[in-house]
């Protein structure tokens, strides 16, 4: 009896000792990811989990360059209609199935055909996938599609084990990333554990990673401070000081690709018939009335970056001809006088009811008033705001975009006549032509020139303007080593270790 007791105690102590040694990283996210199936996933936080779970054909560096992941090299044919890819050898999925050209073919075809796939439009230019041999694959396109490679560096390029297609992928995703799926409790946690056979296993020091959705940023921070979490996403700018002043914590930030700006309703229904919807000079006047740096300092403690165009300053496509406009009240007033507005100049501006957005629009309201523009703020819950925006029930919206590495993803959908996000229904045949051409050419220099041409027109017409680029802010426990934030906001776990 006594021996059994001792053994039992030893077993308990042994298990706790093991638990203390095992390196589990606990990450606090701002919301619960949706379906864990790359073909159905729509949320940003979902992409963060996929970063550890599913390798993609192509990856992105902090300098926004496309680099090999499961595809070791690729070449685009002269006419832009064929992409040749060489695949990494010795890669297996978490169920042991080898990764090969047939798997790539099966995955792309799944994205194209699955009934509720939200990837269909991203891979619609791929006419057929040809598995040349086990390690070579050819993508045949119906037309040149320059942004496609960037799509393959995101969810469209994530590879699932074809053997898992039959089952419920979202409930048990089988990929080939550094960590494999262990369990998920909706709205509570997602647990992943190290995949020992990972092709780059040497770069992975952690044994497991757990993601916990905690929507309230104060509570997220409290969990980090109490040691219940090791790393938190989307630290509030107002909490940065608290993190920096705590010896047990560290603060990390990266310039982001996302932006926040103001979109105008220029042609979507009767609400577009207001002075700002009809006269670009007034839109410019409002833009000039805003001190972007002041907003950044006051609301975000200077942690974001004032913005002027659809790509951030970090992008190779940034156009130096259009730096962040300085506040110019005189010019703003001149433009308003020139537009010959009679009576009060009023704009109804809708904005999400989140505290940060509200502070931003309140500052805009105060600054615009000095130029003689009266702004009525309409605060809306986000889902409602999007619905109203799409229905044309708005004059102007303070709205943002999480950003894409390819410039096409930041602009095409927003200003081309048939763009999916063009809620203000701005339409300009010249812009349509330029953006379509920029999609079709693969030479980066030529594309850059085209995007700069587009910029020139957009800056004159201002169907939307930009206020700031969002930075990614993280709170990290000081026991964590090797974490470096990326501009795409993904949490990459290569080289990350816990020192305790």
């Amino acid at each position, binding site marked *: 009896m006594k021996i059994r007791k001792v053994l039992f105690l030893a077993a308990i102590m042994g298990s706790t000792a093991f638990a203390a040694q095992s390196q589990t990283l*606990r990450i606090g996210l701002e*919301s*619960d990811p*949706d*379906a864990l*199936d790359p073909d*159905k996933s*729509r*949320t*940003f936080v979902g992409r963060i989990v996929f970063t550890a779970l599913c390798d993609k054909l192509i990856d992105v560096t902090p300098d926004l360059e496309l680099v090999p992941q499961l595809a070791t090299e690729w070449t685009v044919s002269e006419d832009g209609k064929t992409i040749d890819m060489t695949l990494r050898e010795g890669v297996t999925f978490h169920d042991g199935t080898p990764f090969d050209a047939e798997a790539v073919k099966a995955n792309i075809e799944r994205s194209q055909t699955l*009934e*509720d796939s*939200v990837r*269909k*439009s991203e891979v619609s230019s791929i006419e057929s996938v040809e598995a040349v041999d086990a390690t070579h694959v050819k993508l045949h396109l119906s037309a040149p599609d320059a942004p496609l490679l960037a799509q393959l560096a995101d969810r469209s390029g994530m590879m699932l084990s074809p053997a898992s297609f039959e089952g419920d992928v*979202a*409930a048990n995703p089988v990929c080939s990333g550094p960590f494999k799926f262990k369990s998920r*409790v*909706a*709205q*509570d*946690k997602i647990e992943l554990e190290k995949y020992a056979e990972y092709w780059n296993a040497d770069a992975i020091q952690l044994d497991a990673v757990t993601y*916990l*959705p*905690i*929507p*309230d940023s*104060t*509570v997220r921070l*409290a*969990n980090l*401070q*109490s*040691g*219940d979490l090791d790393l938190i996403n989307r630290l509030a700018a107002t909490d940065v000081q608290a993190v920096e002043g705590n010896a047990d914590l560290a603060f990390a930030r990266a310039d982001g690709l996302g932006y926040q700006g103001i979109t105008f309703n220029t042609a979507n229904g009767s609400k577009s018939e207001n002075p700002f919807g009809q006269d670009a000079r007034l839109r410019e006047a409002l833009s000039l009335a805003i001190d972007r740096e002041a907003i950044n300092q006051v609301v975000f403690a200077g942690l974001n970056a004032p913005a002027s165009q659809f790509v951030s300053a970090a992008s190779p496509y940034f156009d130096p001809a259009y730096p962040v406009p300085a506040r110019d009240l005189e010019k703003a007033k001149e433009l308003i006088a020139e537009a010959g507005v009679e009576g009060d100049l009023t704009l109804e501006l809708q904005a999400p009811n989140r505290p940060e957005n509200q502070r931003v629009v309140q500052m805009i309201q105060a600054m615009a008033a000095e130029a003689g523009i009266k702004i009525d703020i309409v605060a809306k*819950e*986000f*889902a*409602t*705001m*999007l*619905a*109203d925006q*799409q229905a044309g029930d708005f004059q102007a919206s303070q709205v943002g975009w*999480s950003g894409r590495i390819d410039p096409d993803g930041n602009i095409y*959908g927003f200003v081309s006549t048939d763009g*999916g*996000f063009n809620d203000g229904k701005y339409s300009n045949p010249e812009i349509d032509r330029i953006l379509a051409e920029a999609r079709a050419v693969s030479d980066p220099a030529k594309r850059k020139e085209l995007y700069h041409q587009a910029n020139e027109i957009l800056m004159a017409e201002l169907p939307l303007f930009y206020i700031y680029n969002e930075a990614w802010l993280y709170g990290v426990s000081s026991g964590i080593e090797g974490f470096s934030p990326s501009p795409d906001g993904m949490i990459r776990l290569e080289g990350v270790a816990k020192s305790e």
Partner: protein
Amino acid sequence: MLSYLVRRLLISIPTLILISIFVFALQKLLPGDPVLALAGDDRDPETLNRLRELYHLNDPIWMQYLHWVRGAVQGDLGQSIRTGLPVSDMILSKLPVTIQLAVMSMIFAAAIGIPAGIISAVRKGTVTDYIANIVALSGLSIPNFWLGIMLILLVSVKWQLLPASGYVPLTEDPVQSVRTMLMPAFVLGTALAASLMRHTRSAMLGVLRQDYVRTARAKGLTERTVVLHHAFRNALTPVVTLAALLFGELIAGAVLTEQIFTIPGFGKMIVDAVFNRDYAVVQGVVLVTALGFILMNLVADTCYVLLNPRLRVS
């Protein structure tokens, strides 16, 4: 007794149907549609439309309702638009969590509220009574989210005594499970304790004035026996009824408490579902909560009958 219970349960069916119609109609009045709320990054009109078709969102409301009811009577509450998981599975996985929170909160509420109520009634008009009343009033007026955040900052961050989040199921690790639930249960419990205290106090005051209490005292029984055996037992009836009805308040309070302590229960599920316009989930949770409320009412009535023999005869 049994036929009474069965009859009461049968009456609740039309109630549930009415509630489901009401909720269904109400959520359709909410602006914003689920597909768009989720779309965010993929607002491609073609994709949106396909998803709306897939989830029957383009059908007229009454057809959507009938479609839902047909499934619901067979135990199929539909599919969450956000996670793609069956709603009945989601509810079943959250049920033990919410029940655990409710039970622990009630224990806190009863342990604080009932003795405080008895003491303040017995010591009516004294300093003790005033203090107990002030405490009860604060319990009612301090918002759950404030108390929750303060507790996290003090107990978890400063003293590092209890975890701030990280719910563990009771079956997995009972000790850790209770530890993670202590603070949220306390936060929820304090709000309920206040109502319980006030009700216990007034019920006790009523009973203490009765003749039989005076008789008991005249017989020379100790004050303790008089209060606990003679008075309290009779004062208990309205208190028990109230405790059962507080269940509704408990679920409402859980909405915020579960958010703050990130407990994966009903409250958190319904908040997320409303924001995502995940209609099937909202509908399912409301239905199950309503059922729970009806059952608790039944329990209250049963307790009432059991505690009061006079009602049993009629």
